[in-house]
């Protein structure tokens, strides 16, 4: 599904990603871990197509199509979803209105008519139940005055609504208490299928207790320096990142 080859990316001439190789197949869950500043969020932004980052070398393919030239919204139309670490506020735009716009813009890009209001309502009802979201919440302005937990749950709600092929969860666990973490993780697990894939970016093991990864990668200084199964996450939790740094620097 996603194939990243020797990806180099920089921002304002500062190299952040220095040769990433990653392949994600349908049905898989990949975890990307690593110390602060290793380039995890940059990787997420580059895959999603944030314009501030410049890809200097390498390629990103989604379903065998090079997506490097595509704008962020075109990548979204092709099924890439990013759950933001810091979701932004848009005052005066309700969650429902935002989702309606997002879904219909995506449909328009595919040459489809707007989703009928009836179907939209049913979808909203189903997905909000799935994520244990109070529907009153959906009439509030997007992320405005939301608690950390509400913001993250809202991100996963949007993921549920947009049904992406590839979902990237950037530090979705940060700012969540244990109950919110469980709800969010359950939501992601329910949305998982053999046809879609998830990349979980996190510092900590605890989210991975709930969303169990097939592969764990350690990102350090812009490169994936170690890959393994879910047991690697446990090892990192127990030993920290220093031993990885030492291994790399040795």
């Amino acid at each position, binding site marked *: 599904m996603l194939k990243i080859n020797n990806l180099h990316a920089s921002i304002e001439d500062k190299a952040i990603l220095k040769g990433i190789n990653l392949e994600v197949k349908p049905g898989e869950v990949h975890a990307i871990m690593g110390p602060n500043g290793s380039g995890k969020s940059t990787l997420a932004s580059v895959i*999603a*197509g*944030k*314009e*501030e980052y410049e890809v200097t070398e390498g390629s990103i393919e989604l379903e065998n199509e090079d997506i490097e030239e*595509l*704008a*962020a*919204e075109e990548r*979204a*139309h092709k099924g890439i*979803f*990013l759950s*933001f670490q810091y*979701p*932004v506020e*848009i*005052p*005066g*735009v309700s969650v429902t*209105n*935002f989702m309606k*716009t*997002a*879904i219909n*813009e*995506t449909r328009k*890009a595919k040459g489809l008519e707007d989703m009928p209001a009836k179907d939209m309502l049913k979808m909203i009802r189903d997905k909000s139940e799935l994520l244990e979201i109070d529907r009153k919440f959906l009439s509030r*302005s997007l992320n405005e005055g939301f608690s950390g937990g509400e913001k993250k749950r809202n991100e996963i709600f*949007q993921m549920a609504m*947009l049904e992406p092929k590839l979902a990237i969860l950037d530090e979705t666990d940060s700012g969540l208490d244990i109950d919110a973490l469980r709800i969010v993780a359950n939501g992601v697990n329910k949305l998982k299928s053999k046809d879609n894939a998830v990349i979980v970016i996190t510092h900590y093991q605890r989210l991975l207790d709930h969303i169990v990864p097939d592969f764990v990668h350690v990102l350090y200084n812009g490169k994936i320096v170690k890959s393994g199964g879910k047991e690697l996450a446990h090892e990192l939790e127990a030993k920290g990142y220093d031993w990885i740094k030492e291994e790399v620097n040795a």
Partner: protein
Amino acid sequence: MSKYTEDDLREELKTKEYEYGFFTDIESETFPIGLNEDIVRAISKKKDEPEWMTEWRLEAFKVWKEMDEPEWANVHYQKPDFQSIAYYSAPVAVDPNKTLDDVDPDLLAMYKKLGISIDEQKKMNNIAMDIVVDSVSVATTFKKTLGEKGIIFMSISEAIKEHPELVRKHLGTVVPQKDNFYAALNSAVFSDGSFCYIPKGVKCPMELSTYFRINQAGTGQFERTLVIADEGSYVSYLEGCTAPSRDENQLHAAVVELIALDDAEIKYSTVQNWFPGNAEGKGGVYNFVTKRGLCEKNAKISWTQVETGSAVTWKYPSCVLKGDNSVGEFYSIAVTNNYQQADTGTKMIHLGKNTKSTIISKGISAGKSQNSYRGLVQINPRAENARNFSQCDSLLMGNECGAHTFPYIEAKNKSATIEHEATTSKIGEDQIFYCNQRGIDTEKAIALIVNGFSKEVLNKLPMEFAVEAQKLLEISLEGSVG
């Protein structure tokens, strides 16, 4: 996608033609340019006005001659040469008895281009329209339905002839001839406009609407509107404007007077889209408007405006809260782009006891434009327990525009409660990226963010107008993020 820079923005804006920038070639009868007593008399004569009206105009002209153009507003422009403007222009061969079918097909085609199909509007929106093109009303609809309720809705020229007692009693009582430079000018030379009277206790069953349009090159337009809501009555009045593209500046100096007698309510909504000038700031309409409403006991006047056009705007729809318990409201969205300048706001004059006013102003600036809110809340000594709430929000796009807020508060009664809130924000790249990531392109994202920002005001507009206003906001701001 490559980085969207200020240069891209500039390019894009340059290529964006004014949506309604076309010129319809209708044969017109235009007075010689310049202004003197003879011209004032000629206008009055042309319109077959009674003696008192001619005198009233002349009085205004005398006052105007002695006045200077105001310079206190935060706008800079080449002052119009008032002697190089033609003060009267009418589409030729107008017969007041004409029906829509008789209207110049070119004119109807023009409305169509503007999306104002009269028939459609009539059928679908239940709106009676008094259309003003270059000074003379060419079509009046729904008159009969309104007539059955005793509602008078006609051009002010007709009203001067048919209801002289009403016009004479009220004209100039809210905005006197000598009120200000432009009001005096308007009083002297106003060409036409609308008149509306709602009898006691009558709720006007439909939205009243007028479309104004400047059409003749070099013709200033001086509209005069007078709305009187008698005791216990209600009316919602819609006014919308578009103008064709022009190289030379066009002057628009309208006067609107609203009178809400005891227990009456007037809702006055405006969508203004005069030609704003091109991307270099050339051309565009000068919009110097005086709008004021008078509230008697328990009366309410609500101004809602969406201002997207004009090169220079100078406009302060105001309320004089004379009667006890009267209410004034001002809801405004002002958009400026390219080199547009807007100095707009409101005055809430609290005279009566327990009077209440609300001001919600949303300013959106893009390009190199300057957008100022100027508002006065005045609580007079007799106004016990007056209340005001003001909120002024500004949204900036790019780094070359300006937003300014000039709130004036004068409280001469200690029991007053006055609240003022103000915010300034900028559309951020993060907001845009967030929308992009959800599949919403940048244009649409801006529209979404702007609509969210403007929601409190858009919600105050009648439904069909809100849709039009939303569209206008989108058109006005296309490609405006830096």
